[in-house]
């Protein structure tokens, strides 16, 4: 086995190339990272949202990009869920006349006595926030509205943001596009 001897000139040339490539990679990486960091999307702060209903009608999309989401960690799994039932339900069952949601977008399923799980049927949800109001007024506020980024066009001038009475809309990083509520006892 023979070991090829490198000339000093070749060694310096290879070293220079290596250094240049490394620098290029670092610059490209930093640029890509910065660009990614700079990408912003619209989201609404659930702690400012007053569930006024404007999200349902001011979006440029025919079906709003805002939908109700559910923070299960906060939910009380109540039998009498005020986000699911009308304020004065005749019965605590899934009869349409007892349901708060006008489009029937919340599904109630039995877990164990007396607990029930509530899930959002997204295609049916129009983002009116009626359930959010019911949940926030009496419950833990585990139902809340969010801009769904699989639907949102990320307009420069979001028409819902312009119509939001509580200034709940803001630009957030595309890396963390959702503002999820969390449970907490102090």
């Amino acid at each position, binding site marked *: 086995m023979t070991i090829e001897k490198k000339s000093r000139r070749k060694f310096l040339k290879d070293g220079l190339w290596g250094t240049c490539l490394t620098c290029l990679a670092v610059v490209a990486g930093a640029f890509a990272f910065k660009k990614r960091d700079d990408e912003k999307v619209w989201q609404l702060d*659930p*702690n*400012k*949202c*007053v*569930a*006024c*209903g*404007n999200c*349902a*009608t*001011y979006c440029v999309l025919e079906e709003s990009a805002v939908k109700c989401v559910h923070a299960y960690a906060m*939910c*009380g*799994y*109540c*039998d*009498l*869920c*005020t986000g699911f039932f009308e*304020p*004065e339900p005749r019965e605590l069952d899934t009869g349409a006349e007892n349901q*708060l949601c*006008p489009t029937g977008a919340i599904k109630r399923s039995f877990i164990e006595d*007396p607990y029930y799980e509530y899930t959002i049927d997204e295609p049916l949800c129009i983002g*009116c926030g*009626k359930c959010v*109001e*019911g949940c*926030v*007024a*009496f*419950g*833990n*506020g585990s139902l809340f509205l969010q801009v769904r980024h699989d639907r949102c066009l990320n307009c420069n001038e979001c*028409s819902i943001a*312009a*119509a*939001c*009475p*509580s200034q709940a809309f803001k630009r957030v990083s595309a890396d963390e596009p959702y503002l999820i509520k969390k449970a907490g*006892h*102090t």
Partner: protein
Amino acid sequence: MVKLSGITKSEVLVGLLVAVSVGIGVVALVLFDTTGGKGSGLDKDFIYDIGDKVKIDPNLIFYTESSVPIVTGFKKSHAIAIDANGTIYAAGDKAVRLFESSGNSLGEIQLDSNPRCITVSKDGNIYIGMKNHVLVYDANKKHLASWPHLNSDAVLTSIAVLKNDIFVADAGNRIVLRYDTNGKLLSRIGGKDNDRNIPGFVIPSPYFDLAIADDGLLRVVNPGRHRIEAYTFDGDLEFWWGIYSPNIEGFCGCCNPVNFVILEDGSFVTAEKGLVRVKVYDIDGNFTAVVAGPEQLVKSHEAEICQIPANCQAGGFDLAVDNKQQILILDTIKNVIRTFAKTR
């Protein structure tokens, strides 16, 4: 090109087009609401409305505010208690503050974390429920004991004392704990037990109150079932009362009442969140009167319950009763103590 008084036809057409465009623009500005000021335009079926429940028949309100509210100075207050001498104890931001009934400060006890509940025994000892343990101070605010910490799920929300028994409500573990005065855990009360016919507590949010009645039974709120249950000190469930209803005679929402106190005659004063109402029930649980409703407690003369989620969630007002049978209400939104006296 035809000229009419020096103006070409094309110039007239352009002028007309501009005029029509301006007209359309003006109409659009007037008709289309880009600021949301005209509301969502949704049908009433899409609007959550319990405004009719906010208004309470004035004939049912038997109490009026009898003094100027006491400002606790807390940013976040949790509980109040009152001792046999009329000293008021308010628990809030890492402290317990003492007040005379006039509102004069009598000092404070500083704590390492936020207290959640408080009671004072007949001998003047102060029992403070922290998130997962109990602290004991004497009447001179001297620290006497720190009881062992419970598990990390524990959220202590109420504490009551009678002679050598101290009862602590743990909302996180959905159980009532019975201690002796040395902090020794004697028993657990109210856990689901089919053999003893005990359904268990349903506590969706961290409000879980208890008190000891003169009949020698422990009264515990089961908020998810909208009732107040009576237990012996040995943990037998004796009876309960309470119904769900957004109407005045019942307890509203998912989980109410959040707090209660017992008057000298055995009546119960209850506080609800959501529809913030303080009401009186007789010893058998029959509705008898309103102390104050949303219009008196949340925003005067406005039929609003709450506007932002933080306020909605803060509606768990605590209660105490003084030796004149006046009702003290800790307003956890404004962090003041309001006093209501019976006038009818």
